[in-house]
């Protein structure tokens, strides 16, 4: 089951957070925050090769907690971080990629809205519904 999904902007402040269940949200915040360091490291390492869709598999960050954290960065350095429960072994690489692609598309739609200022928290209902549907689909 996808446990959490967090979107962070260029300066690493969160733009969007969604998690199921919502009790351990703080823990997810922490997890994601620490994973950002790894994300940044990978970005700098890749250099100019980051033209295509990027993806960041971190694998098991904390083996004891059975979480897998996946990352994805857009051209504008907006980071999408997904925390997935490891017990869900049915989630394959392609699925993760497709999910990130969908998220990126939805994010682009949000950006197209002239009333959305980049850097605001995302309050789009369409975006919410898309994320919800994705999470339900996996759960």
């Amino acid at each position, binding site marked *: 089951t996808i446990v959490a999904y967090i979107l962070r902007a260029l300066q690493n402040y969160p733009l969007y957070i969604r998690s199921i269940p919502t009790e351990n949200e703080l823990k997810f915040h922490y997890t994601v925050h620490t994973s950002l360091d790894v994300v940044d490291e990978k970005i700098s390492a890749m250099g100019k090769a980051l033209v295509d869709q990027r993806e960041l598999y971190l694998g098991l960050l904390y083996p004891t907690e059975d979480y897998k954290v996946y990352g994805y960065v857009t*051209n504008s350095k907006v980071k999408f971080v997904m925390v997935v429960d490891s017990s869900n072994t049915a989630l394959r690489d392609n699925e993760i990629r497709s999910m990130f692609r969908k998220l990126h*598309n939805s994010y*682009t*739609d949000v950006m*197209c*809205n*002239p*009333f*959305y200022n980049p850097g605001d928290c995302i*309050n*789009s*209902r*369409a975006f919410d*519904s898309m994320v919800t*549907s994705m999470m339900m689909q996996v759960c």
Partner: protein
Amino acid sequence: MEQGAAGGAGLLVPLSDTEQQRYSELFSLCCCPPAPEGGSAPAPAAGGSKVGDLFRASQLPADTLQQITELCGAKRVGYFGPAQFYVALKLIAAAQSGFPVRIESLKCELPLPRFMALKNDEMRYGNAAEIHGIKFQVPHATLEKNSFKRADEGDKQETKSPPKSPICSPPASPSSYQRIPLSYGYGKSRSGFEQPHGATYEARHSTHQQDGSAVGNYGSKSALVHSSLSRSLSVEREPQESSNYPDDPWRITEEQREYYINQFKSLQPDLNSFISGSVAKNFFTKSKLPIPELSHIWELSDVDCDGALTLPEFCAAFHLIVARKNGYLLPDMLPETLLPDFLQPASLKPKHDSALLDSYSESLPVSQQTRDFNRTELETVHEDPINSEPLILFGAVTSVVEPTSVEEVPDKSALTQDANSDDNQAVNTSTTAKTIPKDFKPSQHLSAKTVVQESNTLKARPRSRSYSSTSIEDAMKKGEEPPTPPPRPQKSHSRASSLDLNKIFQQNTQAMKSGWLPPPPALPPRPFVSQTEQVSEIELHPQMNRAPLQTEESSPTKKEILLTQPPSKPIRRKFRSENQMLETQELTPTISVTSSLSAIKPHLPAQNRQSSKQKRAIQTAIRKNKEANAVLARLNSELQQQLKEVHKERIALEMQLEQLRPVTVL
């Protein structure tokens, strides 16, 4: 008065005329469809299930009903014969009046039993009845009142009761039949436990009968009245205000459409092109709706998510804004009538849309749908209040238009489905829409509706948009930015002169405010040339948006230059008179060069070697300078022109200011 009808049980149950009639009707109801004429025939027995339903409809507790069945003898006899049935009904009446369920109570004169929610029975009486039955079940209490009001009217109109119309004529007027017990029940409650005269009941009954027949014929209108009344009473059934309107609030009328198109034209003259996001944002912000709502409206209306609004998208967005300003809540999904596909053909078909919408209603009973269907057939004008709404001028807050009559819930209720299941939705709507017309007279709009439905299947948003589209947007946006200032002519003939120019420009950027600039290091210090360069630099300032200041500065600097350059006074004067002739300006540098050369010459005493070298150096320098001067001269002329224009603007502005000054003082 007939006395005794319960033969089987050995009871002599006094039944009044009315009661007799009523019971026989009910009996016929319970016997039903196969043998409707068996109402008064004692032979057939009432169907047990139907009787059970009827008894349950009396809203008595179950044990009471059991008692009743026992008492009436059905259990003993094993079936519900007419006698037992009548006894049971009487007992029900007694129980409803609060009397104990005893045989003794039967002896009293009791009002008729009331049966609420006899929907099950009605449903089987064909389509027309179905309508009324369902209708009547829900707003029951109100309908009672309504029917009673109508009864009053009927009474006043027809005090002379016509002969008793055959009441037991069954499915022909089961609806009327249904109304009667209700009205009777109401009449009973109204008059308390008093037994009005049978005659009055008869009168009422007959009037009701007539009313009932009238209802049968004009069921739509009565339904309309009732529905509207019930509507006003049961507000909780209408979760959304938008359903208050008889017509779809999410449909754009012709008037509105024209207005939107005009607004579109004001923003973007080409109707086939689109309005960019920023333009639209500014425009819609004038509507003074909160930004999150505007953001949501944009989300809804920009279907292809390209950051721009085509004409139908714009109409949809505008319409949503209008609706929101009038108090409607924004839907979660774009209503079908606002889809660009729908709006493109620019065909407004309110009737078939009502048919469309009917299939989407969740919170409204079927009755209102039928009413609308009937209304369409009755050719009521679909001048919805939105027409009468003032077409919003941005900045003017319009008052909420009060609901005039009932409305079905717009598409949003069904459009809560996920956007991914649009195809399913289309299928569902088509099937449901088809079933509904079967029930109600299929209107000629059905064909039109199905066609529209097919065209309205929400296409999946094309994901062919690649990330390069963002660059297209950027390009679009760039195109809207104010045109970049004309590039400075940097025609250079040689590298050296271009370098010189670069240095000049660098110096310009560095020292924008200073009037006196240090001469460029590359060029040998020639006072005149440096002066011209300084002047040109100064004149370059207007290009850097410091026009008025620099013009002032340039004029004093010019004057200063004049003073410090006595030998070149005549040349200076020509220069100052803004002579655009390049020759003169080119002459000046050459003359200056020669003058400086002549000035330099005395510095070279009798050293020939050095002089030759210097000559060479000088000559190269001269060449360089000539070229540089040519370039500068051209530049100068252009700048002079700009300066002229800026001067003119300044003068015009000053004049305006002076004109306005007395006004401000006052």
